[in-house]
């Protein structure tokens, strides 16, 4: 028992617990507006985690996550606006996630059972994402409506309603905890999976796809499953984002929006969900500060960090930090 608790005492875990505690007490020393910003950060972190899962864990290069995120948001928006009843919205969220998982599974089936892998998966998902964005952009006319809700072309959907739970509409503080808890759950699930059979099968196919097949792993099937889950997570992030901002538009499905979380995951440490969470929240928080002071340097700084990391710190900034801290501060191998 003592060995097990010693094994848990890593810098990564300590840092995570600190973040967790900070997140719990945050509402006591910020105002409601600032707090709602964090809901935005947490949503985008969930998007980043979807990439940690599909790319970092399974080695699948999905380049269009923002498109899945945006489409999930659109589906939620259409369903919730069409239903017109607050109590329904939590189901709208679930339905949107399920629909997107099915769509992700279909695309994945098309790719992986067709023998498409590596770079080409990136290219197909990229093209798919751009096609989706282009399509949503030209839905301005009156004839473009689903369930009576106009898609709105470049302007997108506005007036997306809040979620209600047990009859209570989630205001800023409640929604903050809602996204916080979902983030923690997603993080925990991804992290825990690493030591399960499922997690090890992802590791196996990431490290050596064809060899894993020869050990008996049904590689295309596993790839479809993990891709579908990742798409579902992206959709979940999208729904939360659109509830936060009460709006979704084709711009949110753009390549740039897909690039940012990939860059974050690559820079933080693509195989490490704690690194992703830490770097994502840090990035969005600092971007917010920069934007407030009128600068758009955030993209440039992010691009520069990415280049430095890929060239010199390939394990990722925070992954490397965790291991260095373990080695020198905690004195573990």
């Amino acid at each position, binding site marked *: 028992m003592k060995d097990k608790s010693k094994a848990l005492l890593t810098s990564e875990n300590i840092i995570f617990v600190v973040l967790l505690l900070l997140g719990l007490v945050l509402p006591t020393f910020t105002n409601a507006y600032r707090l709602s910003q964090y809901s935005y950060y947490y949503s985008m972190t969930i998007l980043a985690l979807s990439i940690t899962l599909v790319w970092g864990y399974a080695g699948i290069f999905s380049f269009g996550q923002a498109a899945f995120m945006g489409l999930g948001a659109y589906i939620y928006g259409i369903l919730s606006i069409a239903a017109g009843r607050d109590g329904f919205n939590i189901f709208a969220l679930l339905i949107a996630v399920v629909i997107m998982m099915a769509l992700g599974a279909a695309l994945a089936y098309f790719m992986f059972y067709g023998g498409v892998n590596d770079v080409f998966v990136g290219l197909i998902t990229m093209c798919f994402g751009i096609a989706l964005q282009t399509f949503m952009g030209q839905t301005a006319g009156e004839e473009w409506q689903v369930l009576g809700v106009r898609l709105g072309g470049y302007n997108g959907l506005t007036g997306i309603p809040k979620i209600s739970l047990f009859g209570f509409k989630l205001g800023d503080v409640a929604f903050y905890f809602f996204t916080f808890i979902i983030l923690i759950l997603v993080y925990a699930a991804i992290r825990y999976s690493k030591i399960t059979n499922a997690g*090890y099968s992802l590791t196996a196919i990431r490290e050596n796809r064809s060899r894993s097949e020869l050990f008996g792993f049904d590689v295309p099937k596993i790839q479809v499953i993990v891709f579908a889950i990742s798409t579902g997570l992206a959709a979940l992030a999208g729904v939360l984002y659109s509830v936060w901002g009460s709006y979704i538009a084709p711009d949110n499905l753009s390549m740039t929006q897909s690039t940012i979380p990939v860059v974050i995951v690559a820079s933080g440490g693509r195989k490490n969900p704690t690194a992703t969470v830490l770097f994502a929240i840090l990035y969005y928080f600092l971007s917010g500060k920069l934007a407030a002071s009128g600068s758009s340097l955030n993209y440039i700084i992010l691009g520069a960090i990415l280049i430095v990391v890929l060239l010199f710190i390939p394990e990722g900034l925070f992954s490397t930090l965790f291991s260095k801290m373990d080695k020198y501060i905690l004195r573990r191998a």
Partner: protein
Amino acid sequence: MEKKILELKKITKQFGGIKAATDVDLVVREGEIHGLIGPNGAGKTTIFKLITGLYSPTYGRVYLGGKDITRLPAHKRAQMGLSIKMQIPGVYEDLTLRENIRIAAQLYTGKKELEAEIDRLIKLVKIDDLGNPKVRNLSHGQQQWLEIAMSLASHPKVLLLDEPAAGMGPEETTFTAELVKDLNKQGLTIVFIEHDMDFVSLLAQNVTVLHYGKIFAEGDMEEIKNNKEVQKIYLGAV
């Protein structure tokens, strides 16, 4: 006569204009140790890839335990009891020794028995003195033994070994040969590719010789040893 455990009928593999294998017939019987030899580039590893399913034949059929597996995907063949140790070590270098075996074993062993199974496989291949390092820190020979342990996790009927003695010194080679003999005594059919002729004569009961993708000769070890034509193709005369 023992029953056929592995059979290739008229296997042909063409890449564009190049025929890597032509009309290869191969029969391996249950309990055999079968050697597959031939000069470099003869197509031996290609044959292994056709057996495991990494390649699909342009023409011909593959049978495992009497069943036609020609259309079966690689992972199903592995689950049916066909294992391989590859020419270039097919191990997960960035993971630890135990994690490697865990991955190989998890499809065939329940959660509760997994740790014990990993221990059993380590003991079987006699690598228990290696500890649990990251596999990239193991020597080439140790990685090959690890890979054999991994290939045994599926309780295979047939084990393919692609150059099991490659890069090994004399002691390690002897160890590997003993290991192969032991596994065979326990009922495992073994087909192996080797260039080290001493190793081949130590172990092989039957031998198939491949040359330019075609069957050049077959027979038991004695016949092949004394076959002058076989000696010639190795010296480049044919």
